[in-house]
């Protein structure tokens, strides 16, 4: 059976299994969830090894008819880009389950519901990256909103209902714009050689489009992805959602779901509308740079630790977007690697923050203080996560961030230069909470916090390990990413700028 399909089926089976476990056997349910996610993670890693990095064509392809009358297929397959993101998703899932062992309790509904939603979500996460049929992609893209919506609204805290609605409406709005564009594509495809949703065939279509049509269709897709990603000024749903959701949910939300946005920009915006992409690149770069700086400033000003992390992500997504539209191999590979790394560093930040919050009973940064002395391990985990978030050399995110900057500089120096100021702001928005929460005297209310227990250590260890390991040796990922991004660049008709002063000239 096709590797991807089986990876998508596993969570569903898992959720069925959980559904039959009686409600009161909470532990059993959790174990089932953890087991399933681990299984998927393993199969994901196996797929990783089966993958032939050398060839740029899609692999693990499966195509079977779904709605023949509309030329809609169940078509899955991955290139380096998709594989990396799927790997990230399936690796994060068990960590989230293990880390948020207790966040499923005290929600509106039973523990069971929580894990069923998580597993269903995982299926869709895999599907959305694996789909090579735009209709199928759209189905996952929209359907995955529902579980997240219930995860936020049902198990979150604070203004969870409002946040959930905001998240859903924002995304639905974007999704509908994309639907309009998809319909447009469908019709145009019908006029030129038959209805299809196959990305490959559709990417030939732009030849038949008038510039205006192409721009409009591009916008339909881009706005949807810009909301997901999120790009300034379409970001305001993210802080609320992240602040309301449980840490685990936030990890999946920022770590995985938002990547769908940047993933989509590469997979659809660029591939389907090359000319429009070129047209809009300047504007998008401006937005990306704004996101970088703006997100950083808001993070500096944030009082709530979860919101702070959310804002840092806005800044990071700015980097990713910039790298994507810089149209250089460094920028592209950097952006893809960035997606992977951001997944893990955000996961680390959110999980540790979640533990801090659940222990302290508050998410206001100023309520913490001197944790380094009370809970050294927790403090260190947070610190390392923070360092990775500010892209400290030697940690994974540095490689990606620097690649993005270098790649952008070679084509768009100004954007890169402004973006680079982000690294100073990053130092501020990480070190300020570090100073307030971890350093200084241990403030009242924090004296008796307990340090991480074994489970939590086991959960956070692999994340940090990945962060450090990839910082020193990113080759395994880059080898898979490079061919893919080189392929995209080439198909866009771009070549890396030659060094202006190279001795060769």
């Amino acid at each position: 059976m096709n590797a991807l399909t089986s990876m998508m089926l596993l969570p569903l089976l898992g959720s069925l299994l959980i559904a039959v476990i009686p409600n009161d056997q909470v532990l059993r349910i959790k174990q089932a969830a953890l087991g399933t996610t681990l299984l998927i993670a393993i199969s994901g890693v196996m797929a990783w090894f089966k993958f032939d990095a050398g060839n740029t064509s899609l692999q693990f392809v499966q195509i079977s008819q779904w709605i023949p009358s509309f030329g809609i297929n169940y078509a899955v397959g991955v290139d380096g880009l998709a594989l990396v993101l799927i790997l990230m998703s399936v690796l994060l899932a068990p960590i989230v389950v293990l880390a948020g062992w207790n966040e499923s309790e005290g929600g509106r509904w039973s523990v069971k519901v929580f894990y069923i939603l998580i597993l269903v979500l995982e299926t869709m996460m895999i599907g959305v990256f694996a789909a090579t049929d735009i209709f199928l992609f759209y189905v996952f893209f929209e359907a995955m909103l529902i579980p997240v919506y219930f995860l936020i609204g049902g198990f979150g805290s604070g203004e969870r209902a409002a946040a959930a609605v905001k998240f859903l409406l924002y995304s639905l709005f974007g999704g509908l714009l994309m639907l309009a564009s998809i319909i447009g594509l469908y019709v145009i495809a019908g006029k030129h050689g038959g209805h299809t949703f196959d990305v490959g065939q559709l990417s030939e279509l732009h030849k038949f489009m008038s510039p205006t049509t192409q721009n409009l269709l591009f916008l339909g897709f881009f706005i949807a992805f810009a909301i997901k990603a999120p790009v300034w000024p379409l970001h305001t749903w993210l802080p609320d959602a992240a602040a309301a959701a449980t840490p685990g949910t936030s990890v999946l939300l920022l770590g995985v779901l938002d990547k769908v946005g940047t993933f989509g920009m590469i997979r659809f915006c660029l591939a389907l509308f090359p000319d429009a992409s070129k047209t809009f690149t300047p504007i998008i770069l401006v937005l990306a740079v704004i996101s970088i700086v703006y997100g950083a400033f808001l993070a500096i000003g944030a009082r709530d630790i979860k919101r702070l992390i959310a804002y840092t992500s806005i800044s990071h997504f700015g980097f990713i977007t910039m790298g994507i539209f810089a149209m250089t191999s460094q920028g592209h590979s950097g952006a893809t690697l960035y997606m992977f790394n951001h997944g893990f560093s955000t996961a680390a930040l959110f999980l540790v923050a979640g533990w801090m919050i659940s222990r302290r009973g508050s998410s206001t940064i100023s309520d913490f203080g001197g944790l380094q002395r009370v809970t050294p391990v927790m403090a260190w985990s947070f610190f390392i996560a923070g360092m990775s978030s500010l892209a400290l050399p030697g940690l994974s995110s540095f490689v990606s961030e620097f690649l993005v900057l270098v790649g952008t500089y070679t084509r768009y120096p100004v954007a890169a230069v402004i973006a680079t100021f982000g690294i100073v702001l990053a130092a501020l928005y990480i070190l300020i909470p570090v100073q307030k929460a971890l350093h200084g005297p241990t403030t009242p209310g924090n004296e008796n916090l307990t340090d991480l227990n074994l489970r939590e250590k086991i959960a956070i260890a692999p994340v940090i390990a990945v962060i450090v390991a990839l910082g020193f040796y990113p080759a395994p990922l880059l080898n898979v990413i490079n061919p893919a991004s080189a392929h995209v660049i080439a198909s866009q008709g771009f070549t890396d700028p030659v060094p202006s002063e190279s001795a060769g000239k």
Partner: protein
Amino acid sequence: MEFTAPVLNYAQLAPILIVLGGALIGVLIEAFAPRASRHSSQLFITIASLVAAFAALVRVRNQASVDAAMGSVAFDGAGVLLQGSILIIALLSVFLIADQENFTALAAAVPGSSEERESLQRDLRVTEVYPLTLFAVAGMLLFPLSSDLITLFVALEMLSLPLYLMAGLSRRRRLMSQESALKYFLLGAFSSAFFLFGVAYLYGYSASITFAGIQSSVIGGSGNDVFLLLGIAFISVGLLFKVGAVPFHAWSPDVYQGAPTAVTGFMAAATKVAAFGAILRIYYVAFANAQWQWRPALILIAIVTMVFGSVVAIAQRDVKRMLAYSSIAHAGFLLAGVIALSKSGLDASLFYLFAYGIATVGAFGVVTLVRDSAGEVTDLNRWSGLGKRSPLVASVFAFFLLAFAGIPLTSGFIGKFSIFSAAYESGSTWILISGVLSSAIAAFFYIRVIVLMFFKDPVEDGTSVVIPSALTLTTIVVTSAITLLLGVFPAPLITFIESSAFFIR
């Protein structure tokens, strides 16, 4: 001058005739059967005749002829599909109607009179509703098949008159119910007067009352265009009134609210199918070649309808009214299919009609379950926390709402996609855009209800969910199953529609 005896194709008319026969038997039962046995026998007769009619329809599903009744009734694929949908929907609605809790004991009794009280004590049950339903169904079956203006008019009245009465049969809030009946009747009569006037002018224009005749004179261009214009305009008023398109929608919220919920469901679902069936036939067959006259106006109406329906629905506080406005919005979407004026438009409309009808019956079926001591609770605020009280019912209702909103993996999404792509294919971009936007607005209020049910805490005011009767349960299960099925595996139905849907001329 001699008359030729009419030649009828009884096989093709069988469905209609069977239903009419059932209705007549029903009348006889009312007249002679003892009270005690009436209900069961009526129910049996009704269900039996509907099933029989369906069987008869299946027998002749592949036939097609213009003169099933001397050219007054066209029997073709589209007709079969429409009749089939109507019969299925009618059957499911009858299951709801069978729950007598919804109906007054004695329609003639003055509300609050001793007469009524006594009748309630004696636990009388109104059973006229069954024959009325059958008469209405018969009219609905005839309406979309009519291929001349007389039949069209007669069918229109046949389906309307029983509905006027049924609207007044509510057990509780009798005054409202009667008021809705009155409004429905007066406005209905008013609109059918317009309709008839239109008939007159079309006859004046083409000297013929058959669609074929009208079509040929439109093509021939003989005759006074002013008459054609007036004819189309006036007939449209009558038809658009039935489907509740703005500005002829005003009756529907009031009637939907006042009528017994089961009837509302029947009305909302079946009437729409029948009316749109007729509209499709007359516009596709009779007026097709005059599209440059009516299409712009219809496009405008469609856009106004979908936007108005969605926007006003936001502000509703009563479930039934909310659904009424949503059905107005959907009427707008369906008009897009009429405007498409193409094969794909026809297919899309037929699919949409069936999917929407099923979901509507289901949704109203759920509404009948939410009650307090004084009968059904339709005030949305009292629905809050329903998800806690009875998660299953709430989830089902939420599912139907998502289907209305057109979220993937529900029938609504496929319908929306196909109908909009058809509309865009035929060049009406504005329909697509406004459709997408109003869908976004619509999502807003569907989600508000979901929030209300799941994320708000229940109000302790005796609102509860009754254990559904077996029949009601069947309806709800079947409808939700179909809605899901059509969302996941729509291919069979779509291919079937594609292969068989056409209008014989």
